[in-house]
């Protein structure tokens, strides 16, 4: 059983600039940020992204998939990315408002595991 090694290696990808092929513009106006990610990881972990990056819907810019997600705050999206890549979620020191926002975002993106966890947590 080599799961722990697998998870560790995959989670390291989050900070690995190689193979990045997605640029996600998160947030609106002054509260906006750009995230880079790997489409294959996002698709594997989320049906939402699987649809969004499918041939029918994807938009490419300079060989990069570009995707806008204006209604989620960058700090919330960062937590989602962490969950997606590493299966980790650290709610300590998070204000309730953030946790609520995270709940709403995970519902929209139909990340059921995360959504249910947060519901229980609240």
């Amino acid at each position, binding site marked *: 059983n080599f799961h722990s090694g697998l998870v560790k290696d995959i989670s390291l990808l989050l900070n690995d600039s190689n193979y990045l092929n997605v640029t996600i513009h998160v947030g609106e106006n002054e509260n906006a940020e750009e995230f880079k990610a790997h489409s294959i990881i996002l698709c594997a972990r989320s*049906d939402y992204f699987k649809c969004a990056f499918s041939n*029918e819907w994807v*938009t490419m810019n300079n060989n990069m998939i570009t995707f806008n*997600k204006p209604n989620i705050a960058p700090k919330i999206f960062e937590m989602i990315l962490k969950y997606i890549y590493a299966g980790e979620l650290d709610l300590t020191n998070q204000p309730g408002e953030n946790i609520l926002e995270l709940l709403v975002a995970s519902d*929209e993106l*139909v990340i059921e595991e995360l959504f249910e966890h947060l519901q229980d947590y609240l």
Partner: protein
Amino acid sequence: MSSRKQPKGKIRPPKKPNSADAQFNDNWDRLAQAIREIHKKNASILSFEELYRNAYNMVLHKNGDKLYNGVREVITQHLEEVAVSQVVPAFPLSGASSSQTNPNGAGGANFLKVLKTVWEDHTTCMLMIRDILMYMDRVYAKTANVPLVYDLGLDLFRDTIVRSQNYPIQNHLLEVLLQQIKLERENEIIDRTNVKASIDMLLELTDASTKDTVYATDFENKFLETSSEYYRVEGQMLVGEYDAPEYMKKVDKRLNEEEQRVRHYLSQTTEPKIRNIVEEELISKHLKTVIEMENSGLIPMLRNEKMDDLGRMYKLFGRVVKGHDEMKSAISDYIRELGKAINETVTSNTTAEGGNAASGDKQTGATVAVRWVQEVLDLKDKFDKVQNLALSNDKAFQTSFNEAFEYFINKNSKSPEFISLFIDDNLKKGLKGKTEEEVDSVLDKTITLFRFIGEKDVFERYYKQHLAKRLLLGRSVSDDAERGMIGKLKVECGYQFTTKLEGMFNDMRISSDTMTDFKEYLDKSVLEKPKLDLSVTVLTSTFWPMNLSASPRCNLPPELTKACGTFQNFYLGRHSGRRLTWQSNMGTADIRGSFKARKHELNVSTYQMVILLMFNDKQDGESLSYEQIKGESDIPEADLKRNLQSLACAKYKILVKEPKGKEINPGDQFNFNNDFTAPLQRIKIQTVASKVESEGERKETREKVEEARKHQTEAAIVRIMKDRKTMEHNLLIAEVVKQLQSRFMPNPALIKKRIEALIEREYLERATGDRRVYNYLA
């Protein structure tokens, strides 16, 4: 998100729903427009994220049902348009009423092609719609218990296109599909991909009420009905036009084609159904016709050993319930018929010369028997080959063939004798021109015929007689072959069957030892040596076929009588309490004869020796009459005639008979043939060879067999009753039959008679309470 940020007051302002409605309408308009763009294949201008969020918000604000119904409406509307603008214009020109007027099916093929495109477009669009409505599927559809949007799309396609209420699309589709299949059955090339696309489409759609596929509810039955009709007509046509092998090839081809068709573009669930139809229409309905086809049916195939055709028939007919039964009974009837013919040639032969065993060619009797067995064996070989090469060694067929053989073999009441004679023939001259293996294989086959005999005890009696002659006359080719044969019989019938036969062999061996001892005894003793070499075989009377009570008379010459006396003294001195009876009818002698030309050594029977020695005292030309010979020798009349025949009427004429002729009659005169010449020095005078019994002998044998059966039946009854003590009549009869049937089939009347005889002799009694029950009396 924005709605969450606006805290709601407890009191709802009247404007609120309006603004929410406006919000919804705005969102919905954009979404409906997007779906229309998807339908127009313009999705590239759309943003997944926005559309998804749009739908997500609608569901979040409890407008799932409105969204769902709206989507339904947009899709329905679109499909209506598709029906009008694409499907209806593609209807085959001739219309749904008659597909016949469109012989090449091009219109139909085009229609299927259009439908294929429409279907592919629909599914592609539905996948995209499903993508943007994922949240609706996950959250709304689940709780509202409505189909997921993709399935909704399938239902709408079914109701708006495939089963359209407004246009006869369904009729066209079904007609075109059936027409395409019909064209293909008639060897036209069709575009299977288009047909397959439509079939796959029907397979993906579900009928709401039956929960079965639309393929099953709308198409399959129609397909099967038309196929039934098609093959009903074709079956009648083929059966009239082709001979049996061609017919079967056509059927094979059809079965194969239908299987391929199902595999290529229909549903596997249809496979057994269409197979049944072809089997029913092309095989079941014409079974007898094909079997009985003149010059090409089953019997001609057998006659000409058409193994491929037979094999094809076996495989083909095995597909239907009655197929093999019909084949089996036809073949069995044929075997019986052939067997009957074999029996008839034999009976016509034996009756032609029968009744007068002494007349004509002495060999003929045995030849008839050998020929009969050989013909039966050839027939057996033929059907073994059929069984092997065409019938996959089917056990059921084997059983039915065996019954047929058993039937006609037992129809010939002489079969036990014939089979024994056949074995006799092989064991006597088997090795001539045949290898040991060949003889063995012939004997093995003979055993299979032996198995068919019902009256094995009759066979045993004949076998014993024939074996006795072979042993005593030294006519057996090989001891190993003899023992091999007995071994085979033992395997078939158990040791009881062969103990006596083995006892005969034992007597031969012991006798040979006894003769060695006798020679030593003579050498050592002071007795006068006999003037001839005496060879005695001591036979245990119960093992050998002889009749002690009617021991044959014969006046032996004095030298021989004296030698016999010497042996008798020697033997009885060693085995006191035994009784020796001389069986002069079973012996042979080597004597030397001086003829004008040269001397010859003659190997003759004891009787012949006695006859020939009488001529020693006679002058040249002096003759003896039949009556003189008879009186002096005291040889029984039948034997005397037979032996005189061998000496005077056969190949080597040692005696000359007056008047000439093949028959021996009272008043005949016999002379020693001084002019006799022969190329060989040593001559064997053929005693009358084993032959088919005359009617008189047969009757005698029959009586002996009946007598033996009485004993065996009584023995069986006593054995059973001793064990059970008390038994009901029918059960006892059944048990007796069971014990005896390996030897013969006892009839209940015989058993009943024996029971009565045993009651009379107080082995059994009837139970006092119940007359149907017997008690054993110890």
